[in-house]
């Protein structure tokens, strides 16, 4: 198992390198990074020349990439284009915030979807089953920003009508909270709900299908024939097997969730990666954008790695391949 994990870990290094090259090339060829700076009246020709030298903009793209890679690995992505502001401290802060949002949303989604999928499969064509199917259609078809707005409207109206503050509709925390954790939960609740609905819909459908396939399998029948109680048959024999494909889906879905986080954070004005990305795009500054893309790539690769490890844990048949 350890060999498997180490090997999977080593595989991700070339993938990451390739990612960095693609990110750098695509962003570089999308336009002259200096065009915005050159238009500013308060930036002198000398400053532009300094930028060109510092970022090696007069070199070919592969060479630029090599310099950028060196900067990224040894100097935490360096500074922005003008060289005034180091990228990493900002990125680190928003990363922490986004991770809180995304991890909470995914954990919530996975737990709820698992329960929904299992119960739907165990009671196929019951009222509960039809109910979750209907919910899933809503979840799939509802745009995240719209659902987020609806949540805000509802909570705001409750606040206006009853003067009870259940959840906040913007920002990450109050200026001076009495109870930090409670305050954070009150702030994160709505974004987490908005972000998890699509995931709940997706995972519960996969879990249901996967369970249905498994509950009629021969080994589940064997377990019943051994006299194993039904609850244990479901959890120990059926769910263990049904989880395998769902874990893969969840890990591959991570990119989508990160994309959803961009929208959610914008609606809820959260100081996260999404808002940061939008702001840097607006500034036309390629360097924070590339750093952001790189970090996102690392996350996606990490979650795939995590999925592979979980997969190996759940399914002994693939450990030795």
């Amino acid at each position, binding site marked *: 198992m350890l060999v498997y994990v180490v090997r999977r870990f080593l595989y991700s290094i070339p993938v990451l390198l390739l990612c960095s090259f693609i990110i750098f090339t695509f962003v570089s060829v999308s336009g002259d990074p200096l065009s915005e700076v050159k238009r500013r009246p308060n930036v002198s020709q000398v400053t532009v020349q300094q930028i060109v030298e510092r970022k090696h903009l007069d070199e070919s793209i592969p060479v630029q990439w090599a310099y950028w890679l060196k900067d990224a690995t040894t100097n935490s992505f360096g500074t922005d284009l003008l060289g005034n502001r180091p990228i990493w401290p900002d990125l680190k802060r928003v990363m922490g915030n986004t991770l809180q949002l995304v991890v909470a949303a995914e954990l919530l989604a996975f737990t709820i979807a698992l329960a929904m999928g299992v119960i739907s499969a165990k009671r196929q064509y019951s009222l509960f089953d039809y109910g979750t199917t209907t919910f899933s259609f809503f979840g799939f078809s509802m745009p995240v920003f719209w659902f987020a707005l609806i949540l805000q409207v509802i909570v705001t109206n409750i606040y206006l009508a009853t003067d009870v503050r259940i959840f906040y509709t913007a920002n990450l925390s109050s200026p001076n909270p009495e109870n930090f954790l409670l305050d954070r939960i009150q702030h994160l609740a709505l974004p987490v709900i908005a972000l998890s609905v699509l995931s709940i819909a997706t995972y519960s459908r996969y879990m249901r299908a996967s369970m249905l396939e498994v509950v*009629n*399998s*021969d*080994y589940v*029948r*064997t*377990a*019943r*024939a*051994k*006299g*194993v*109680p*039904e609850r244990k048959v479901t959890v*120990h*024999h059926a769910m*263990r*097997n049904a989880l*395998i494909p769902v874990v893969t889906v969840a890990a591959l879905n991570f990119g989508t969730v990160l994309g959803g986080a961009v929208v959610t954070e914008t609606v809820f004005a959260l100081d996260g990666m999404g808002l940061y990305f939008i702001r840097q795009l607006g500034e036309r500054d390629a360097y924070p954008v590339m750093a952001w893309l790189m970090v996102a790539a690392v996350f996606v690769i990490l979650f795939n790695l995590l999925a592979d490890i979980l997969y190996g844990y*759940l*399914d*002994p*048949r693939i450990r030795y391949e």
Partner: protein
Amino acid sequence: MSEPVLSVRDLVTEFKTADGIVHAVDHVSYDVYPGETLGVVGESGSGKSVTVMSVLGLIPQPPGRIVGGEVIFGGRDLLKLSQQELQQIRGGEIGMIFQDPISSLNPVLTVGDQISEALLTHNSKLSAEDARKRSVELLHAVRVPNPDARFDQYPHEYSGGMRQRAMIAMAMANQPKLLIADEPTTALDVTIQAQVLDVLQQAQRETHAATILITHDLGLIAEMADRVVVMYAGRVVETGDVETIFHAPRHPYTLGLMASLPRLDMDLERLQPIPGQPPSLINLPPGCKFHPRCMLSHGRVRCRTEEPPLAPTAGGPGHRSACHFKEELADGVAALSADVRTAS
């Protein structure tokens, strides 16, 4: 004879499907006596597996439904027991071996875990260590080499024959009074079949368990069974001891099965099939269910209108056949089977 271990009486099991009701098992009765091996033969879909699944309460309901009958085991009617009471019996007093050991073992649990589970389910006082010790003994008993290491392996690391032997170990774990083997060798190579049968026979000898052996392999029946139940279209059409069934069958279906076997003592170009197809269990023919394919019926009205009961034959004690004209087979078995051969 002593009291039967298991007594199935007039069992009726149906499945509701989109096309109609499938009469999978229709008034099936048979007894299994202590220490004996009862062979249940029949084509696919003759209801042989559904019967034992109904006995153990393993029929998915819905779409399945046990309409009537009773199953007496240890003085209790299994059909009237709650799921909890049935769980006690399943894997405890009745052990079961399934057809396909590849899909019948859980791929994500070690074989040892799965055998231990059978032990621990029925003995809550057993410690995990003792369960392991006992499981290793069981693996050793079914001749799995190096059982201590094999305990921690997964089913995909076992060969086909070893998997089936592990299944046998699992079924024998709690010293059952009755062992049900549903096509135990069908998925295996011929050479492996012999090994598995050896192990199965040894397990039977050691535990003195009565056995129901479900198969469509008449060779297996000849080798293993003491008595035989022949099933067709969800019904028992003939039952008797193995000698009688093979040498003096009194049902044209049984005779047809025998005639369809490859023979070493005759030089045959082709095998002799029973003409026609098994009937649809949704839309059964009236009267005797076998009459459209029967070489004895000759279009007789009685065959088409009246369902023959399973009645004793003149042949011997315990020999019963569900054919109106069973005694016609008494003197002419050889002639008739020759007839069948030349006719086709």
